[in-house]
């Protein structure tokens, strides 16, 4: 886990969408990491569910839709504050109050900061993480190996490119290995109401572990082997049993297909 620390602000105020970071000799073009490349990350994360074939265009559409559903502020709401005061008590609060950055800028900044930390020589990977955060990295290592057939018993070295990017820290496969094993297996390691005694040292390490970055705290996808993704009729919300051959949308039957062709089909 990369150690997070506030970097001194160099030069001008950060522009929305990206951040100035100290030059450490690291060349981003050489490590093929691009925080804007949601699609590739999604693929890497296992965002493409098994059993559902999505074209690149459809995947983009799904992601655009989710982004729209997650939107906090109307794009159109340029609401000015009445009787706005233009005095600021300190230069720090002036900078904060004048800032027009949105949450995505701050999250991108955090991503960039972590990437930079992880890629800087000797950062994050070794250092204090060893003792304190070991169980977490171990768990994440398992989750990170989406396509591997064997589960590594040791933490994945965070120096491999896949685990270096903050996005890749997002849990990809649920951490409890037993759940994937078979249908008889329940998801937790507990089998009895009286579990093994508490290892106080391990517990103290857990309690001392710092908060995760925003992206890493995101919940992982459902367990592999669970029910397949459900598909619904675009027109009425019933099961999407029929696929429109022109645009790939789902409809429930002929009646909804008719409505779909009339007004909703996106490819003519």
């Amino acid at each position: 886990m990369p150690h997070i620390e506030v970097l001194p602000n160099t030069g001008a105020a950060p522009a929305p969408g990206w951040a100035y970071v100290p030059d450490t000799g690291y060349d981003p073009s050489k490590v093929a990491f691009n925080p804007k490349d949601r699609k590739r990350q999604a693929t890497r994360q296992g965002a493409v569910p098994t059993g559902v074939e999505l074209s690149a265009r459809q995947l983009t559409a799904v992601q655009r839709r989710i982004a729209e559903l997650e939107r906090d502020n109307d794009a159109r709401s340029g609401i000015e504050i009445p009787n706005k005061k233009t005095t600021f008590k300190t230069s720090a609060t002036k900078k904060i109050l004048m800032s027009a950055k949105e949450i995505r800028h701050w999250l991108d900044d955090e991503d960039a900061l972590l990437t930079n930390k992880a890629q800087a020589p000797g950062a994050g990977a070794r250092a204090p993480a060893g003792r304190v955060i070991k169980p977490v990295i171990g768990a994440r290592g398992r989750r990170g190996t989406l396509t591997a057939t064997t589960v590594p018993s040791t933490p994945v070295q965070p120096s491999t490119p896949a685990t270096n990017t903050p996005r890749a820290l997002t849990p990809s496969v649920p951490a409890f290995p037993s759940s994937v094993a078979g249908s008889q297996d329940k998801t937790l390691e507990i089998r009895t109401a009286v579990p093994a005694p508490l290892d106080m040292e391990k517990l103290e390490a857990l309690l001392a572990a710092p908060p995760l970055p925003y992206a890493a705290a995101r919940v992982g996808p459902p367990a592999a082997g669970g029910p397949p993704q459900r598909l619904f009729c675009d027109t009425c919300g019933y099961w999407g049993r029929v696929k429109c051959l022109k645009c790939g949308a789902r409809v429930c039957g002929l009646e909804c297909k008719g409505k779909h062709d009339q007004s909703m089909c996106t490819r003519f």
Partner: protein
Amino acid sequence: MPPKGWRKAAHDPVATQTLVLDNGACTLKAGFASAAAAPSYDDCRIIPNCIAKGRDKRVYIASDLEKCTNFGEMAFRRPVERGFIVNWEAEKAIWEHEFLEGKGGLGCDPKETNLVLAEAPNCPVQLQKNCDEMVFEEFEFATYYRSIGPALNAYNDLPFSASDSPETSLLPPECLLLIDTSYSHTTITPLYNGRPIHSAIRRMSVGGKLLTNYLKELSSTRHINMLDETYLLNEIKEAVSFVSPSFKTDLERTWKGGLSDRREVDPSIVLDYVLPNYEHSAHGFARPHDPIKARRKLLQPLDGPREDILPVGNERFAVPELLFTPTDIGLQEAGLPEAIMQSLSVLPAALQAGMLANMVVVGGNSLIKGFMERLETDLRQLTPSNIPLRIARAPDPIKHTWLGGARLAHDRDILRSVVVTRAQYQERGSTWLGKWFAGGDAK
């Protein structure tokens, strides 16, 4: 802990009254706490955390909205995004309007007030720093404690039946799994003796905001363009949605059938929501679906009295279903029951059972009909049957985090042990403060 007698020092930097603030994206939960009286839900006010602009261009700041009767095409500016205070220009205007001004506000003098502020978990460090600087440099509060909201809940009594829990005390339970399903997202936080286990905190992207936006999207593509009616769709969501105990059955009951096999939709599920026209009615209402009236609507004259109806069928349960099956919209996240398991999987086995026996749910989505029952049923299926499950919703799930903070502030010794004074901040700066609140530095 300060030495005995410290309180009698010439000037106590810890003020008598504390403003406790759960600064949500949709609403602020705010009120004073002091050592004098034990706090209750009644001491907490719920205030819209937004600046809104109506069709008539009139601008409403926060609680001004209570006076509004026309929410048509109302636009909202929200300072909190994804649960974090992002736009301080707007948040400052709202705080000043609600807390500092005497007229209509709480009339609070920050220099004579402590601030206990709840934040969402996993906040970017830079945003925390902005918040700390605003609190001490712009508002100049006397002392300040910033905590993740879920952790404040450890100061509340467990909402299980009285025989289960010890007498009212501020001693946090050994294990507490706090599930917060609110506007911005749904988070799961395991706490041990009141301390959050940060590496096990998990967040689902689904919250009340996403549900409202989803209902807005579905209604707009299927019936009437409602894309500018966020307020109304939120109202409809709160009025009609329920979590289905059996999604497949309910989906069948709301289907009109195919061309050759027509079906009668179940009138106990399919409703007509009569939309407010904002001239004679400020709010709408739901009634059982009437196919004749719904059809006649199309023949109503464009001017003159008319009744606009939004039919709501499977949307009633397909929308809150996202809390349990986010993949229904292609969102590759586990649903809440499995997300809880993902969080627990980080913990040693010895704690997992304790957490499952002490699950508390807060946040407005938990009020959706059927939510608690479905959560318990689904959790039961994911856990071995010999592990006892105990889960309860807080008596007031919206104000519960606030109440936890108020109970902390009511206890002077606890309050004193967690706050940072303005003098300490001025001496050591915001980077130190950030580390102190993250538990990584000595005071």
